[in-house]
């Protein structure tokens, strides 16, 4: 007995759907999202570090030192942020 024409059509349709799903996964908008994310990640950590340094300087009266230290710590935090999200992107 030859194959039911409906079944063959169903199979073809299923294949098409699965292929389309695969393509959708490749074009996942979250990759663009993470790309947008990277730009601000670096800057915001530097800003937060500097603000913390500024506040600590004001409270302890150690004028230029803590802001300098926390600025560089902020830069490091920003770079680790970017590296982390870049690693997430590759998953």
């Amino acid at each position, binding site marked *: 007995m030859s194959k039911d024409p409906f079944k063959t059509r169903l199979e073809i349709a299923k294949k098409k759907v699965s292929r389309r799903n695969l393509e959708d996964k490749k074009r996942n*908008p*979250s990759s*663009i*999202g993470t790309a*947008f*994310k990277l*730009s*601000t*990640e670096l*800057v*915001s*950590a530097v*800003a*937060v*570090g500097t603000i*913390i340094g500024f506040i600590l300087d004001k409270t302890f009266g150690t004028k230029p030192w803590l802001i300098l230290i*926390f600025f560089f*710590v*902020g830069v*490091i*935090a*920003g770079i*680790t*942020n970017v590296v982390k999200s870049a690693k997430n992107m590759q998953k």
Partner: protein
Amino acid sequence: MAANPMTQFEVYRIGPEIKIGTFDISFTNASLFMAISSLAILIIFNLGSKKNSILPNKIQLLAELSYSFVSKMISDTAGSKAKPYFSFIFSLFMFVLFCNMFGMIPYTFTVTSHIIVTFVLASFIFIGVTVIGFIKHGFGYLKLFVPSGVPVILLPLIVVIEIISYLSRPISLSVRLFANMMAGHTMMKVFGGFVISLGIVGGWLPLSFSVALTGLEILVAFLQAYVFAILTCIYLNDALNLHH
């Protein structure tokens, strides 16, 4: 006239001045557009869920598509544990999306182009996620700041770095949305000004740029709402499933 591209971001009072103590809580154009976008969401989703036919009409299709979109996004990024927070993330996504999209209509006001609006949203998310993390894990949530496999000598530095990067979350979340919306709208206004000043002879080039920018801005409006929601999911995932 439209000489200054920044006048579109001006907040002005509509109606009478209301004051509580020294705080000015009058109804402004920003509050008007927030109310409009919330109302639009309410109306669309009420109409969309009123009659559940098997063959959906356009509004029902819109409501169902956005529901499944957000639901898939949450289960992909934060797992099944984040299901109870669906309503929060859904309303957040819809609010940001509608504010962005209403801003694309000429002569409207873009609420999300003000950093205070996005910062309040982001800090609510930040505080909420931190509270959820502490409720779920107790003081074990502080392990988030101590990555495993770090030598003891480096530990103080690493903890400070982790705390700074944790604190930078609401800032990067709010600045991203605000900067994208403000830069896009300013650019559109500037190119629109070029069309006027160059006149019928040279105005065609900036006009074509304006058309292209409008398309780009609609993409950015959607994408930024999406990024805002997906980052909320990622932060929620960190709080719910504590691992590295």
